[in-house]
């Protein structure tokens, strides 16, 4: 084991994973709960909660160097309960993948390909992801690094283009004394930071033992995602206003649609955003797909092969087709949130407590 391990690929992996559907749907969800022009503060609260949770997860993986969640869970709580925990995590990864790709296919259906069936859009994405995942983690990390500049430059270009249409009156007043509402919003914004829990899977690839290195990785990735989210919240509120955010299905895309330069030959800037954004969805899907596949392999104790790969792909694909429409899709997010609580906070917390207790009593 070499001491100096690069942290940049891990940071890029985490950022690409965390940014997903949240950037498109979160402004509306938060506006419905908070409904104040300063609701972007909720995003910062959400990132702090996520950071604390990530530290909890780190305390756990620090005790088991070079092992994934699926490896150490059976060691801590026994074979069968450990497998159950792994299974919950796999289910979580599969359902979150299904959720994001279904949201993406709905958006593609709305704005780009309105005559292509949902299943085709989903199949293209799942199949290409299957191919990438079959080539292993190091290739996935490489792929993420390749696309990362595209994602970031898309965000930057969109920000520069839309900054002139911000109306400052929509963003004011900034200091309203209703902190309670903002805290309520945290419950929603927290879920848009989901993705950092995959360090429990990455820990099999790279050892994380130092607090300094880890806080750097988590801090930079959550911090930059938080910065991007806050920026897009401000753009959304400034351009569309709070009242509008509550009624627009996909606010960020509508925001991109308001960009217009008179007499310029290129008119549809939302396409620029959509192309970049689909890549971020693909990276998020890849990360979860890989984790689910790895989990399944570890549970049944066999090597990664194309049958299991197809199994996971089919599971994601068919789960994504379950909601009958966009309203059902959004309401299924509540179940997903409960599952996230279990996978993000429940499992790591139980494992941590038990492993501490075991150490104490031995």
């Amino acid at each position, binding site marked *: 084991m070499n001491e100096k391990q690069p942290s940049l690929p891990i940071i890029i992996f985490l950022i690409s994973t965390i940014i997903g559907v949240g950037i498109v749907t979160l402004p509306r969800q938060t506006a419905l709960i908070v409904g104040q022009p300063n609701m972007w503060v909720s995003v910062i609260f959400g990132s702090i909660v996520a950071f604390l949770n990530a530290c909890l997860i780190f305390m756990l993986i620090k005790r088991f160097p070079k092992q994934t969640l699926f490896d150490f869970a059976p060691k801590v709580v026994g074979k069968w309960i450990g497998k159950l925990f792994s299974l919950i995590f796999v289910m979580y990864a599969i359902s979150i993948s299904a959720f994001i790709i279904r949201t993406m296919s709905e958006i593609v259906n*709305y*704005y780009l390909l*309105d*005559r292509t069936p949902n299943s085709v859009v989903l199949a*293209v994405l799942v*199949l*290409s992801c*299957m*191919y990438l995942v*079959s080539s292993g983690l190091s290739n996935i990390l490489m792929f993420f690094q390749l696309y990362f500049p595209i994602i970031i430059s898309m965000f930057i270009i969109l920000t520069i283009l839309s900054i002139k249409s911000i109306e400052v*009156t929509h963003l*004011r*007043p900034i200091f*309203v004394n209703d902190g309670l509402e903002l805290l309520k919003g945290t419950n929603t914004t927290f879920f848009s930071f989901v993705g950092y829990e995959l360090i429990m899977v990455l820990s099999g690839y790279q050892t994380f033992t130092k607090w300094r290195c880890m806080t750097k990785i988590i801090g930079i990735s959550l911090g930059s995602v938080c910065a991007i989210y806050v920026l897009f919240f401000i753009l959304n509120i400034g351009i*569309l*206003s709070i*009242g*509008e955010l*509550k*009624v627009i299905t996909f606010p960020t895309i*509508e925001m991109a*649609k*308001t960009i*217009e330069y*008179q007499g310029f030959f290129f*008119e*549809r800037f939302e396409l620029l955003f959509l192309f970049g954004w689909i890549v971020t969805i693909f990276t998020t899907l890849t990360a979860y797909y890989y984790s689910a596949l790895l989990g399944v392999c570890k549970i049944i104790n066999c090597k990664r092969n*194309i049958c299991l790969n197809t199994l996971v792909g089919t599971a994601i694909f068919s789960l994504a087709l379950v909601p009958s429409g966009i309203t059902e899709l959004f309401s299924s997010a509540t179940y997903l949130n409960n599952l996230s609580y279990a996978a993000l906070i429940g499992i790591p917390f139980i494992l941590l407590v038990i492993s501490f207790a075991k150490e104490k009593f031995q």
Partner: protein
Amino acid sequence: MKRKHLMVLIPLLLLNLSACWDSDEIEDLGIIMAIGLDFLDEESARYSMTNQYVVPNNIPSSQTGGSVGTPYQNMTLNGDSFLSIIRQNSLESDRPPNYTHLKSMVVSEKLLRNEPINNIISFFLRDHEFRRTVPVFITRENVEDILSIEPTKEMFPAVQIKELTQNIDRSLNVQDNLDFGDLSKHISDRSSFVIPEVSINQNRIRLTGAAIISNLDHKIAGWLKPDEVGGLKWIKDTVQGGVVTIDEEHSGEEPVILEINKSNTKIEPVLKGDQLSINLSVNASLRLAEDWNVERNVFKPGWDKEIKKNSEAVVKESIEHVISLAQKEYGLDFLEFYTWVRIQHPDYWMKHEKEWNSKFSDVPVNVDVDFTLTGYGTQDIN
């Protein structure tokens, strides 16, 4: 392992190889530049809709020189809903209408008198093809007539209507475009607002005043004349240029015309106990542009005192006139004072948001106009 990779790769290749099998050629699209909506209320149909198609073959190009006909074609059809009318177009035109490059929408007065604007606009906001940047205009003329008027400089009436508002820095009577996005914001904020009006003047399209839309029933409450639009612009801090005319009525001498350089309006709601009042202060710098009183000597210090006083009085009068229209005649806050109340006194706003219309009518407004005269041009003839 190689073969397994191939098994994934081949289906993927199949998807790519299909290429452009369902592409639409741009010449085969019926690109729509403008929509006109009117109210019929006949037995057979409630609404009429005019679509302005681009006729690509008639667009004059540098190679062929002059064109044969107009580069646009209007098709007016009647029906009971907008989408059904759009689909009816397919019975008469082989090109499917495409609205992604829509430039303007003209709505008739009759339609807005009979139907609330949120019902009318709902379809256009819901459909993804319509952009949020399409400006909306109202007209008292026949909608089809407006869209058939030969444009003066542009190729399409649709573009002509939209681009007129580019002169916002030229005239006080021109206000900024109200686009779908703004409209939707006003509707979800439940606020009153104004829609710019277009009319026909000697067979040319002309920007005139504006229609006031009430936030109670979302229908037309009244009209603003062109000079009242000027007063509204002073209040809403959207003055970017234009002229202030001091006529004989105000000064008792020959008219003086000033050009506006820069203007800034501040609205400050003051809350004393539960009593709200609003201080509105206008700061602007102007330049002497036209002076019919040639005896005036601008090289003498203090030449500007009287002009300053008179011009301030003129603008103050026009502002107060619009405020009294809003407060007394209509009782609707289309001046957007509520924005500043919401920002400065959020607690008060939360409490009185529901009854703002009646509160607004009784709020005392102090208007304070302060002008600076910055110049008098290159020569002062005596």
